[in-house]
């Protein structure tokens, strides 16, 4: 494997929660608890998990959009955590983001041509004429017409707005794009258009994606490697074929079993196997052992007492005392 483009080690994010009472100490919620991953150039790494698993916080902390409280992040050999604000700002042209909600991530008072041009203006790329040409090219690239550049965001549908977000992210020729649930707000038919577009652009420009999603179907379609997160930790980390053919962590198996599929038919008397009950424990009060033990169908005494570490299994990594 070639050198990773983005290499994250021991990433930790804490949130201050305020005091429980007047004299009690301030509570700290550890949202990301020592996460390691590598993103190889030209590939897509999926961060998968349920709400509250810390997948978005992990990705945002890795590109310093959320402040981290520990760990290192190397991007293309540079330690991002030691950069000054000004240096980091210059670096941002290599790291772009596509957000989940195409309605709130575009300025409603700005024409979409200007929205796509803004990163070029901020990064001082080329002269005004060159920027205008670049914006026109970007519009064509994502399947919009140049005559739409003078319109405002509200004049576009959700899918078209997401295309605008993608054009904006591509403007500075980034190497890495963080995609934070980019299709979950879209209708299924539009989802397919955007997913195909993201994949085509990746092939064309050799982009690397850090792709956050809760939808395993989407992840299977677009990701090469997958990190499954549970309560701020990676519990399984492997390549796509391995994860979908032979999940090792019971939580991954549960996620796969829970995800809807066309093959599970009521008409054929489908009954779900190995369903989890209850909700995840509170991240403010984590159990001493495995965080998944309280919901795990396979949990034993050791799981409740001793925390499993993420260990290499040969075909990926898994944090479980009794992997499947």
């Amino acid at each position: 494997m070639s050198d990773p483009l983005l290499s994250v080690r021991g990433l930790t994010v804490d949130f201050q929660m305020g005091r429980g009472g007047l004299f009690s100490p301030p509570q700290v919620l550890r949202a990301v608890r020592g996460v390691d991953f590598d993103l190889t150039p030209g590939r897509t790494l999926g961060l998968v998990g349920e709400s509250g698993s810390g997948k978005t916080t992990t990705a945002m902390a890795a590109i310093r959009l959320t402040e981290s409280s520990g760990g290192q992040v190397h991007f293309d050999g540079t330690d991002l955590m030691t950069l000054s604000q000004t240096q980091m700002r210059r670096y941002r042209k290599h790291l772009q983001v596509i957000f989940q909600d195409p309605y709130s991530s575009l300025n409603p008072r700005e024409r979409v041509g200007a929205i796509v041009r803004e990163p070029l203006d901020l990064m001082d790329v080329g002269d005004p004429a060159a920027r205008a040409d670049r914006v026109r090219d970007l519009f064509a690239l994502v399947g919009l017409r140049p005559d739409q550049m003078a319109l405002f965001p509200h004049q576009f549908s959700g899918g078209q707005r997401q295309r605008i977000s993608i054009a904006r992210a591509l403007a500075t020729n980034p190497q890495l794009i963080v995609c934070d649930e980019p299709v979950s707000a879209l209708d299924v038919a539009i989802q397919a258009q955007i997913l195909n577009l993201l994949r085509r652009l990746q092939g064309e420009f050799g982009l690397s994606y850090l792709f956050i999603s809760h939808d395993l179907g989407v992840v299977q379609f677009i990701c090469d490697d997958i990190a499954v997160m549970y309560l701020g930790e990676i519990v399984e980390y492997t390549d796509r074929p391995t994860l979908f053919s032979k999940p090792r962590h019971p939580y991954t198996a549960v996620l796969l079993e829970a995800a809807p599929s066309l093959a599970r038919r009521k008409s054929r008397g489908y009954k779900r196997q190995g369903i989890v009950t209850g909700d995840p424990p509170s991240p403010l009060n984590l159990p001493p052992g495995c965080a998944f033990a309280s919901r795990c169908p396979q949990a034993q005494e050791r799981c409740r007492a001793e925390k499993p570490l993420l260990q290499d299994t040969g075909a990926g990594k898994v944090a479980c005392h009794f992997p499947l």
Partner: protein
Amino acid sequence: MPLEKTDALMSLRDLKVEFDTRHGRVTALSGISLDVKPGETLGIVGESGCGKSITALAMMGLVPNPPGHVTGGSIHFQGEDITRARARRMRKLRGGEIAMIFQEPMTSLNPVFTVGDQITEAILLHQDVSRTQAEKQVVELLATVGIPEPAKRAQSYPHQLSGGMRQRVMIAMAISCRPKLLIADEPTTALDVTVQAQIFDLMRDIQREFGVAIVLITHDMGAIAEMTDRVAVMYAGRIIEQGTSDQILDNPLHPYTRGLIGCIPVLGREAAGAEALPPLAEIPGIVPPLHLLGEGCAFAERCQLADDHCRAQRPALEIPALQNGGHPVACHHAGITTRAELPA
């Protein structure tokens, strides 16, 4: 139109709903006919704006008026046309024999009352029981929907419960008066997959136990496969294909239905070392605005098979003459999948 004899619990016939908008009067539902049979699950599937939620609201007699108007057709529930029922009668039916669960359990529960109070209120409105009896029923109901420590949880306020628990509370409230029909409008959209699986399992258990018919509104073909017996596919205010879930999923006849099935990234087990999956099928373009619909097929703009006939004349929903049998579909080219197969 006289109602033909059916064994259906609820029958919609040629239902028409219009809305006053800034584009003038727009037809949101143009002639929907549907039957819900006792004890079955009927799925209604389509993209946003296809009219599936309006259909659900109409079944509850809850089309917002103004700006909405039921301007034609009928909805018979156990033989009674509820489009003509008085408000008082509808209040009796709603929450009694017809119940509904909504997409967002946080906004459909009152934040300032405990969940126990809210279910008690529903029971007292519809049943002739004392408050003490109702409160006892509440605890039993919360246990039925799988809430741990039901007596304690009845004292909780909605914000103290997780999304999945809140949806369980909504289901407990919906089944509190033993409804015959439960309308579920995207009941799991706001929930995580593991919680969605729990809620689906609960809905199936409840159907088995109480024999309630369920209308499941969804955009998710996976939910259709897992939950429903029959399906109606909607597009731009009309039903464009209808059949058993297996007919629709295994042998879709309308190009739109084929598109909806083909465009979902389907989760499947993979062989180790498999190549990247092929690109998804796409339905180009977007749903046309309802006020711009013409005389032809509403899907023609996005359809690969569309010809002049499609653009000029809207196909009716009927069973096509096909060798391998068929089910009702509104397409001039039903059963044809590629342009090459079109007659010259």
